[in-house]
């Protein structure tokens, strides 16, 4: 039984593509057959984050228009057996694909893959509608900032209106030090506000920039973000995984500073 997951956020630049790349790669490392689809037509980026930009021949729009077979557009990631990418078109716009066509492509892919991960474009227009059309569940990515949380809330409302039952939250770029000082909303603050289940907390980690430079997702590495993304994958497979240590240290410090504040 395959699962189709859309990675979405509303706001741009919060880490949808990085999350898609890492979750897809992580699931493949855990032995699953995974297909990543970049649905951001006109502004594709998942290929560069994955380091597969030089191997693109056909893309999603070619598949939809019947210019090639689905198999021809899939790029195999040689580093991770079972991992494939369907790139988006760079020279077209969102209207080149309809939600109905997306559903058809996904139905075909379901036959060969355990997980299909859709990297959603920013915004709530047609690109978003295309990305969510064939998905069963959603990963909502946000950062602990007012603008990103507001957009995430809007997205959650739209997903609910589209009949989504399973939505999980990933809080990206959390800065423990700032939370400790009371200058950033904590993970539990964000969960309080958005009120959907939390599936991952990814710390702000400069290794993410380095791995993007190199075109190799850091999931599974020892870097804090790499470990956090690996845990997200474990939870997606239904394996109970405790949240990383830095969460605990936050709550401890929050308590200490809370006591001082009361005094």
């Amino acid at each position, binding site marked *: 039984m395959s699962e189709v997951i859309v990675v979405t956020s509303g706001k741009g630049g919060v880490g949808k593509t990085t999350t898609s790349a890492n979750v897809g790669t992580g699931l493949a490392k855990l032995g699953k057959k995974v297909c990543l689809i970049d649905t951001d037509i006109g502004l594709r980026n998942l290929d560069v984050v994955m380091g597969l930009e030089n191997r693109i021949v056909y893309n999603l729009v070619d598949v939809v228009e019947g210019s090639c077979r689905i198999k021809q557009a899939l790029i195999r990631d040689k580093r991770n057996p079972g991992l494939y990418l369907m790139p988006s078109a760079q020279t077209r716009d969102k209207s080149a694909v309809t939600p109905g066509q997306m559903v058809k492509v996904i139905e075909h892919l379901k036959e060969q893959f355990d997980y299909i991960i859709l990297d959603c474009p920013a915004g709530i227009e047609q690109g978003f509608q295309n990305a969510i059309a064939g998905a069963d569940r959603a990963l909502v990515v946000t950062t602990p900032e*007012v603008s990103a949380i*507001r957009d995430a809330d*809007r997205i*959650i409302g739209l997903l609910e209106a589209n009949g989504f039952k399973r939505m999980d939250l990933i809080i990206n770029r959390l800065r423990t030090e700032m939370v400790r000082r009371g200058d*950033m*909303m904590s993970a539990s603050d964000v969960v309080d506000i958005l*009120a959907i289940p939390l599936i991952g907390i990814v710390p702000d980690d400069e290794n993410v920039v380095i791995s993007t430079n190199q075109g190799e997702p850091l999931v599974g590495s020892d870097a804090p973000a790499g470990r956090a993304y690996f845990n997200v994958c474990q939870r997606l497979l239904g394996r109970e995984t405790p949240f990383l240590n830095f969460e605990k240290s936050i709550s401890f410090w929050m308590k200490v*500073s809370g006591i001082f504040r009361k005094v």
Partner: protein
Amino acid sequence: MRRLFRRKSSREVAKDRLKILLISDRVSCSPEMMEMIKQDIARVISKYMKIDTDHMEIQIGKTGAGGGRGMKSPMLYANIPIVDLHK
């Protein structure tokens, strides 16, 4: 030490702002519609008492009752200054 005694951290400010912002976002009630509701309320109340329509305010806030997604359900608040109870 100054930080410990500061009245409100930026984290709390952000959280409070978001809570209010999301209530109006979720209700998706346009300003035009709010204005129409306001005028209709004013007309009805004016039948029974004299009110100060220039200084009346209506807004949507949250209540104690349970709503969707863990948030409290929205409630319409109206502040209507009464000029004279007996018309």
